[in-house]
């Protein structure tokens, strides 16, 4: 995802002189390094100083530029949170805040580097659009949209590197603000977003093996949420599953359940999110997802036990 973001930004930045990137001592190598070499005046490193990273992107947007801020998700969202809220969102400025390593991607670095409640927090702020692509291809689509949109600030929540692509043959294209069916199915529908999509696919395979035709929908735009699309899914599928790499409070599952309540849906809803706790586990990304109860077997078992 990181490389795809960098490649896309570089390509767009060559065309659009408004595009700038402000990083806080963390930079995607590869194409961003090329961008830095070719357009040094549009690359700014604030050093280990995230408040000025966000503050200055706000000022830049006020004077007609189109800045992206970039660092590890915890530092791009949590550390300068009031700058995001007051400078970007209150003033509704078109700045994209990129959080690399959303969720538990930086598994071995401990909770200081785990953005495990980033989506909940970001979705709570007025005017802030929240986008979490599930693979490199969606990262490209989302980056393109961010570079040219007129809505306001965006939190673009990415994984890290090496994520597989799921969406090259998706039945539907990436459209901002719309649910995207990326795998067809008729009995069960899994809603997910971000790098944990790989587990959604693994769960779908387990369900298929037991004869349950399973669709997967990428909820890449968490805010504004495609409520109409969610309603349709709740009406169409007898079983809906939400899998997310985010704290349970304020995540997608809560919203889906609230919508289901509002429309009196009869659907069975299973939701899988991170636990509401800091887990001191320093293994791989998979290890820590397992420790949070998000093992593929565990999730499939709970769904099949209905």
């Amino acid at each position, binding site marked *: 995802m990181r490389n795809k973001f960098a490649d896309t930004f570089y390509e767009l930045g060559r065309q659009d002189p408004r595009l700038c990137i402000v990083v806080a001592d963390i930079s995607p190598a590869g194409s961003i390094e090329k961008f830095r070499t070719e357009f040094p005046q549009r690359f700014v490193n604030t050093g280990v100083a995230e*408040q*000025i990273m966000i503050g200055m992107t706000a*000022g*830049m*947007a*006020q004077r007609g*530029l189109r800045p992206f801020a970039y660092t590890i998700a915890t530092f791009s969202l949590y550390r300068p949170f009031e*700058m995001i809220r*007051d400078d970007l969102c209150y003033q509704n400025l078109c700045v994209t805040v990129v959080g690399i390593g959303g969720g538990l991607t930086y598994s071995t670095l401990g909770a200081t580097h785990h953005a495990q409640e980033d989506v909940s927090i970001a979705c709570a702020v007025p005017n802030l659009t929240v986008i979490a692509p599930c693979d490199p291809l969606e990262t490209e689509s989302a980056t393109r949209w961010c570079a040219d949109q007129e809505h306001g600030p965006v939190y673009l929540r990415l994984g890290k590197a090496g994520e597989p692509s799921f969406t090259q043959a998706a039945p539907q294209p990436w459209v901002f603000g719309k649910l995207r069916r990326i795998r067809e199915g008729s009995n069960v529908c899994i809603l997910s977003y971000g790098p944990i999509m790989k587990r959604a696919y693994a769960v779908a395979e387990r369900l298929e093996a037991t004869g349950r035709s399973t669709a997967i929908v990428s909820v890449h735009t968490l805010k504004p949420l495609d409520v109409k699309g969610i309603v349709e899914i709740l009406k169409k599928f007898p079983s809906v599953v939400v899998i997310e790499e985010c704290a349970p409070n304020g995540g997608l599952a809560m919203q889906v359940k609230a919508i289901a309540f509002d429309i009196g849906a009869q659907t069975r809803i299973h939701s899988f999110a991170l636990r509401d706790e800091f887990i001191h586990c320093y293994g791989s990304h998979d290890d820590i997802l397992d420790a949070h109860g998000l093992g593929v077997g565990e999730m499939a078992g709970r769904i099949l036990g209905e």
Partner: protein
Amino acid sequence: MKLERSRERIEERRNAFDPYAAKQRCRRYRKRILEISQQVSALHVAPAFSCVEIVDALYNGVMRRDAKCEYRDVFLMSKGHGCMIQYVVLEEQGVLSRADIDAYCKPHGRLGAHPDYETPGIAASTGSLGHGLGLAVGQAFAERLKGGDTRLYCVLSDGEFQEGSTWEAMMMAGNLGLGNLVALMDNNDFSGLERMSEGHKAFYPLVDKVRAFGWRAIEVAGHDGAAIFEAAASAADSAVPTLLICRTTKGKGVSFMENVPIWHYRSPNPREYVQALMEIETAP
């Protein structure tokens, strides 16, 4: 040669700044703020009074206008709670209307106790301290990148320099060599609660700190409009950002408000209002 030209320019513009006229304007501004104070139970009178001359010198002398009389330079009020002075200056200039000011903090109005971005004449929403300089750094950076000669003038409270975010912005402005950025510190020596020189001694000395961050630092008498004008004008050809440390008095102009913390927020009662008005009118 460059220095001489610069001196000539300062001399030329100094003549354009009339200290007597400035004094009359500042008297009007203070009276108007007092008048508004009688419509609401609380507004930041003292923080506004301490930067009246600073804001006046910027709007009525330092900041340049284009042929259509629109400002080419940008004013950014980082100490958002001091915005009453900006409102009344904008009222006098016709940017805000009398009706706008009369509806201050009222449900049908558009002016609150802190400035709101996209209100006419307002360059940024502020109110939470420690945000304005970062915004000004971004704006100054953008203007330089676009190749224009717009200058950014950012007024900060001294209390804002207790915020770490202000020093992040100071360091970055120094790193970027933003010569088109001029910050003006309203150094009245009071945060909301107490005198900084008593309760927060490590705040001083200022000049060395500021210079160490790659800025020019100029100390100036903050109620002397001509001095502010001259110091700000001297920043015009700088290759690095400039901070004017304006020595001011919180509540300046009203004896019972000066350096008394409660006036950070309180509005005078009718009796106090009459006395305050008399002091402003009879001040030399």
